[in-house]
């Protein structure tokens, strides 16, 4: 989106992701989404009097992995208490890292090469979850609320970016890339819908890149990457409109309303916001030693950017191509690269993997490389058409494997020889003179008509591209 009158937007993102540990951050309760309310609770995560926290080693390990993957320095760190009253927080303080976070000064490179600074990625505990009764389930208008502490104490890493992004597209790309990194490192499952990854966007606008930062608003409740882009664009436009009308932006939290496509006022920052941070006396400092840090750095999974490069190198596609991103996101890149190594055509392998296989990625990840390679080879050799290849792949995926040749034979798939296709094309042209005239006059829309007719006549055996080529040849002739 181009902003009017030269306005520039400034975007910084705060991403909270739940770590994929077996247990919570400070107690042995299961870290499990979707269980019966208040069944995964103990004295510690209920904040019962006398309870104490003990830090989960695995949570630290995963947090360090995130830091390593985001090119951060991994530092000696401490935990503080952030004090405020809220019913989903059983101790009425949150244990979080404050001025000494574990990961600092990193960066993340977007697929197009744009580099976004990562200020910090710190460990903290999640809150419980409130359900609002009455008032359409919203907090406003509810008669009362019900609290479930299963999520209380689940380990989070909060990743804070520098305010480096200037477009909604960059913000979307950042979240998408970050999500891919979190999944690749095994630190988090990155499910925005389930709330295991939550994105807050800080947005301000200014008249030019050289101006001071404007007053920012924080947009919460963004549940998908698509909504993030919409919310940012809406919010920037709202702020510009305000300022151009001579009003000022008030620092506040705003909520994205997906249905109405707008942000609405949430919580105005108050003077009474005084969290009285102080060192959590029930925990001791965290200072991973060099060997632990080296071990984490040395064992980071191959990250999405490197995997995209590998797919690009194998298939000849551009590393920033959508198809490349798709196979990496869906972890189908190993399949593609292996198929190419086994002799498959890279372009076709990528196309099939990013479309037909991607449609059932779970089955695709289990797909036998040899079978996939065989389908691509049959297609590139012209033994079967693209359409037939899709059918064969579909059956392989649905059945969890099989012999591609046998499937093709069962369907009677065989390459139609050129002369047979030529005569069918001629027949159809003769039977449809008006449409042929329009085709020759350059009306591209009738191409589909002719292809469809040929497919119908051949029972789908014709190769769409061969039909198109035959049409082009006749029109020229």
């Amino acid at each position, binding site marked *: 989106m181009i902003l009017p009158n030269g306005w520039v937007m400034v975007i910084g993102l705060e991403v909270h992701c739940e770590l994929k540990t077996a247990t919570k951050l400070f107690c042995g309760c299961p870290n499990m989404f979707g269980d019966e309310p208040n069944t995964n609770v103990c004295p510690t995560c209920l904040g019962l009097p006398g309870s104490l926290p003990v830090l989960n080693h695995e949570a630290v390990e995963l947090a360090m992995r995130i830091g390593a993957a985001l090119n951060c320095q991994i530092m000696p760190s401490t935990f503080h208490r952030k004090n405020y009253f809220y019913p989903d927080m059983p101790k009425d303080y949150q244990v979080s890292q404050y001025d000494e976070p574990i990961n600092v000064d990193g960066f993340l490179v977007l697929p197009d090469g744009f580099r976004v600074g990562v200020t910090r990625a710190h460990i903290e505990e999640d809150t419980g979850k409130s359900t609002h009764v009455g008032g359409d389930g919203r907090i406003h208008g509810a008669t009362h609320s019900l609290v479930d502490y299963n999520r209380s104490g689940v380990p989070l890493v909060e990743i804070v970016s520098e305010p480096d992004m200037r477009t909604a597209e960059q913000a979307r790309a950042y979240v998408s890339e970050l999500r891919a990194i979190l999944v690749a490192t095994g630190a988090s499952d990155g499910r925005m819908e389930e709330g295991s990854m939550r994105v807050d966007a800080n947005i301000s606008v200014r008249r030019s890149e050289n101006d001071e930062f404007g007053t920012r608003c924080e947009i919460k409740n963004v549940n998908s990457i698509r909504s993030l882009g919409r919310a940012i664009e809406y919010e920037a436009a709202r702020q510009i409109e305000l300022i151009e009308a001579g009003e000022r932006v008030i620092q506040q939290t705003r909520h994205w309303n997906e249905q109405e496509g707008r942000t609405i006022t949430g919580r105005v920052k108050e003077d009474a916001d005084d969290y009285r941070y102080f060192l959590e006396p029930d925990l*001791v400092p965290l200072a991973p030693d060099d060997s632990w840090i080296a071990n984490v750095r040395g064992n980071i999974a191959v990250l999405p950017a490197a995997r995209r490069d590998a797919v690009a190198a194998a298939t000849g596609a551009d590393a920033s191509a959508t198809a490349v991103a798709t196979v990496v996101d869906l972890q189908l890149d190993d399949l593609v690269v292996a198929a190419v190594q086994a002799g498959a055509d890279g372009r076709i392998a990528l196309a099939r993997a990013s479309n037909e296989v991607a449609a059932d990625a779970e089955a695709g990840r289990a797909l036998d490389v040899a079978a996939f390679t065989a389908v691509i080879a049959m297609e590139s050799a012209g033994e079967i058409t693209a359409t037939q290849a899709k059918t064969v792949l579909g059956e392989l995926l649905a059945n969890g494997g099989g012999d591609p040749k046998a499937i093709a034979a069962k369907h009677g798939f065989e390459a139609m020889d050129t002369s047979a296709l030529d005569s069918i094309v001629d027949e159809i042209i003769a039977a449809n003179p008006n449409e042929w005239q329009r085709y020759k006059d350059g009306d591209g829309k009738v191409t589909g008509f002719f292809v469809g007719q040929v497919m119908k006549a051949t029972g789908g055996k014709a190769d769409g591209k061969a039909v198109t080529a035959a049409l082009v040849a006749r029109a020229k002739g």
Partner: protein
Amino acid sequence: MTAAPTTAVDIAAAVRAGDVSAAEVVESHLAAIDGREAELHACNTVLADEARAAAARVDAAHAAGETLGPLAGVPVALKDNMCTRGIPTTCSSKILEGWRPPYDATVVTRLQAAGAIVIAKTNLDEFAMGSSTENSAFGPTKNPHDITKVPGGSSGGSAVAVAAGFAPIALGSDTGGSIRQPAALCGVVGLKPTYGAVSRYGLIAFASSLDQIGPFSATVADAAATLNVIAGYDPRDSTSYADGIPTIGSEELAGEVSGMRVGIITELLGDGIADDVKRRLTEAADALSSAGAKVEETSVPACIYGLSAYYLIAPAEASSNLARYDGVRYGLRVDADNITGMYTQTRTAGFGPEVKRRIMLGTYALSAGYYDAYYGKALKVRSLIARDFAAAYEKYDVLLSPTAPTTAFGFGAKTDNPLAMYLSDVCTIPSNLCGDPAISVPFGTGDDGMPVGVQVLAPALGEPALFRVAAALEGSAS
């Protein structure tokens, strides 16, 4: 049978030997409670049925030839800020009235594993905030030596339980002197162990970086026996020493102090300390000298700033620790139209004035714009105090001071003046700030005939030296 055993060590030995049954021990202590509890109000809950059942288990185990634990059959009273599963745990606060914890504190588990029998939950200043047990929501505890006097606090109920023979041993918690000061005022032994020696899991927090559980007892040997049971690494407490602390044995309890270097803290002999208390301290020092210790006065300059640092640090931590009493999950709720109203009404009705005072003081000390001037500076002063004590321990094995500035005072004497009350803790606070152990040993009486305590201080993990000197003082006390 000779006279019934009264100390924990003797009771456990007699139960092991079959000279007395745990049931008899429990009955005689329940009888003692029956006799004076109405007058003294040391207990919030007397656990007669539970104690009898536990005694029956000990006796059955003995009959079955099982090996009994080191405190088998020994009744113990617990300060009512330690969680006991299914048994009310109130902190002497209205805000927790009726709450039954779903779990036991680690010290409770350890005591029970050693065969000890929990006989009562004892009264305290609400949330352990006070020095007289007058701040209990359930009414004050009386000093058994003179019921017009306070027992000290905040663990007044536990001190009185031991002094009045309700139990040979009791546990208290000490954040700024809450074990040692009431021990001194009631004429019993009170120990604050090294921070991290005894698990805090299940101890309802007042100020987490200062709180430590410790024993009350009539004898130094019983304090050691209790410490040996309750101390040790607890994986549930991140601030627990992995290696625990040295076990105290007969060598330490022999009271051999010859050649030990003892420093009397000059700063704690000043104007605020009553003359009769000073005289007892001098006698104690002389006794150690005669026993071969090298005793001299020594200055610990930053010591005098302990009170100032403490009364910012402890309330700051408390203001956060006590936020959870909000009427949502347990305890008192005063209903209101909305959550903020419910929080405010509940906390306003549930907390007494001293707790409110400290919550507000701590909130202020941590709040934006004041943190550096108050809490931040207090932490630096704490450093200075620790540094000065560390320097003193270069020269001395232990330090000596009065435990409390005066003998027990009358009810109401300091209730209108919180600052005057806080000054009761001037001698005991430094050990909490430093995380060091300290013990109060009874040493004669003041001009009013009320008990006086002498405090022995040691560096962290210095319990063995502490007990040597304590045993020597016990042996020479008149």
